């Protein structure tokens, strides 16, 4: 398969680009909700428009009413989300939760997917325990209780947790904290007794929660996949979420880079356009090169994942790590090359810097994924 978008994907990219530039623009969404102090950090109207466009169901099977497409297509939408810094529950709902639910029972899919497709429902995932992503060890416990389970534990960095109708929780049903087996994924409804969330606004104006599960009682039908066999479901969900976050990160990097290159062509100092200074030209060209390479890694990982290749896992971590460093370079160079104006709230480049920080932390930062690459490469 060639490493570029085919005709259908290019068409999707065109419509996503146009839609996001118009409806998802920074002033219309991110600044608007931020300045209003919105408790969700995104607009539900826009989320319904995502549904009308069909974006919400990209990773949902056709039999379940979705488009039955893959991670390449989800990534196309995410790249435009990144470029416009569009706040939405797309990544947590339509990528992470949709990938997990695809492995769930008919009953679960029937319960949750229709609301996702229309953009009426919002989903979140609760994986992290503590300030760093480390899903290898999960302490949250789910004990058998009658026909169901009782969940107890604490989760952090639950993006959109406070707005979510359902939260996917990874919990331990057997074994020790760091065992690969013994995990189970649960679909936890927002109003479950014993579930409490503490919402916090993050640097990029998105909203996450610290979540406490205090004996949350769930029926057996809340289990996604197999009891004790949740690691496989979790890994599939994480792969999709990580490559999705990387695709969004590429959008952030390209958005910041394009803004910066434009600025180099406008701002004059010493009687010259600052883009004439070779010191800046070389830094911009180096950045361009890194962004192109990172983007290639993202497409490759998406294709491998869609093809069910064994190499996908390694390449997902390569892509997430590469994008993490590259987008970070893009926003740092972006602010620096803008000079003083880059430090002002009024100017957008700083918003890219904030988003990059939050996004690259999500589902494992560049260091986490670099470590994984070492391990997967046998050292």
């Amino acid at each position: 398969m060639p490493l570029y978008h085919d005709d259908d994907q290019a068409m999707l990219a065109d419509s996503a680009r146009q839609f996001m530039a118009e409806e998802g623009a920074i002033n219309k969404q991110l600044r608007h909700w931020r300045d209003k102090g919105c408790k969700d950090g995104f607009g539900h109207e826009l989320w319904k428009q995502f549904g009308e466009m069909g974006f919400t169901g990209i990773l949902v099977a056709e039999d379940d009413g979705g488009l039955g497409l893959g991670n390449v297509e989800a990534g196309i939408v995410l790249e435009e989300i990144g470029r416009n810094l569009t706040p939405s529950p797309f990544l947590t709902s339509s990528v992470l939760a949709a990938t997990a639910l695809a492995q769930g029972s008919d009953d679960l899919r029937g319960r949750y997917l229709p609301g996702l497709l229309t953009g009426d429902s919002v989903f979140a995932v609760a994986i992290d325990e503590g300030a760093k992503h480390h899903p290898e060890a999960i302490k949250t416990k789910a004990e058998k209780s009658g026909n169901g389970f009782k969940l107890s534990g604490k989760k952090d960095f639950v993006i959109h947790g406070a707005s979510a109708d359902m939260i996917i929780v990874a919990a331990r049903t057997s074994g020790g904290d760091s065992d690969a087996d013994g995990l189970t994924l649960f679909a936890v409804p927002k109003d479950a007794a014993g579930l409490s969330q503490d919402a916090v606004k993050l640097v990029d104006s998105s909203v996450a929660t610290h979540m406490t599960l205090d004996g949350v009682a769930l029926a057996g039908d809340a289990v996604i996949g197999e009891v004790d066999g949740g690691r496989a479901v979790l890994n599939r969900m994480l792969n999709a979420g990580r490559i999705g976050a990387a695709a969004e990160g590429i959008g952030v990097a390209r958005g910041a880079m394009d803004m910066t290159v434009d600025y180099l062509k406008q701002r004059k100092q010493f009687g010259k356009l600052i883009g004439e200074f070779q010191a800046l030209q070389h830094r911009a060209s180096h950045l361009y090169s890194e962004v192109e390479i990172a983007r290639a890694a993202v497409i490759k990982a998406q294709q491998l994942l869609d093809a069910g290749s064994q190499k996908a896992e390694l390449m997902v971590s390569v892509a997430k790590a590469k994008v993490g460093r590259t987008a970070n370079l893009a926003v740092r160079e972006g602010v620096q090359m803008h000079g003083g104006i880059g430090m002002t709230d009024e100017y957008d480049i700083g918003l890219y810097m904030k988003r990059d920080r939050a996004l690259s932390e999500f589902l494992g930062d560049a260091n986490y994924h670099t470590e994984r690459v070492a391990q997967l490469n046998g050292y």
Partner: protein
Amino acid sequence: MADLDAFRSETRAWLEANCPAEMREPVRDEDDVYWGGRKATFKSAAQKSWFEACVAKGYTVPAWPKAYGGAGLDAAEAKILREEMSRIGARPPLSSFGIWMLGPALLKFGTEEQKVKYLNEIARGEIRWCQGYSEPGAGSDLVSMQTFGDDQGDHWVVNGQKIWTSYADAADWIFCLVRTDKTNKYQGITFMLFDMETPGVSTKPILLISGNSPFCETFFDDVKVPKDQFVGEINRGWDVAKYLLGHEREMISGAGGGDRNSAIGAAMLRHSGTLDPILRAELAMFDVDALAYNCMGERFLDEIKVGKAHPAQPNMMKYAGTELNKRRHELMMAAGGSRSLEWDSEETGGGKPSRNWLRTKANSIEGGTSEVMLNVISKRILDLPGA
């Protein structure tokens, strides 16, 4: 798709039958690859049989038309052959400036007669070419070159000096930039082809920091070049030269060169049982960049075939690929410790680690320096003012 699947299994079977085990071992240095030419000898029987099998099949230049010695493979087939060769670690059967540089330029600018003659000679490894571009006063600023060809009716008389001419002493012919109009900087250069045995051509090897002397000073003293031995148009050789540089940069970038992730980390761990944590971290960061760069190489080759790649993209590939290769060798030296410092011991194959490490420093100089690549990206891709 079915056709391609069939092509893949045929290719796999053909490689199985024709690529000797010895030719599937990693290339340790330039000598492990056959370069062809009148003066060439094979290093082993395996090298010879692999080369001859490929010549017969057109696989020294798989994507060239059959009439010119290739196999006439289309983009998808060529990609499959590349993948299958890289899967078994097959060495290239023949390496040469003819394949990477002159060939593509002739395919675009050559006459039919030139293509039939020169391309077949290249494909069969009969003639080895060298590149006469750089001069003592004209490196990055190549267009300021001075070597002059005086028009004498049916021939030119060429005088001047080239420098850094790789393998000039091993080559049979040279493709050479010669000024034929002193009043016109860009449109006063002719892209000439001539035999290195022509009277008046002499070479003097230059010793590199690696201790090898693969390149030369090349002198032209009243060298007679027949007036039909040029490519493109007279005085328009700069167009040919630039086009060729694109291919040279692509080649030096290593795009499509298979897995660059050299698994240094795993090898080191196997070898010594431990890995310094900071070195391990650097290796891991390198692997991320190298594996991502491999993807870029694949994407670049896919896009270039269908005209989706930016025409200046080889410059970006060269910049990133050569900087990465230098970093790889720095890490291998660090991983190898004092053993890798040995300059002529048997255990190191005569100092291969250190000599190869030093050789890579030229990657970001030859074919246009990294700084020049960044200049070109600034100008042609980012469209920055005054670049």
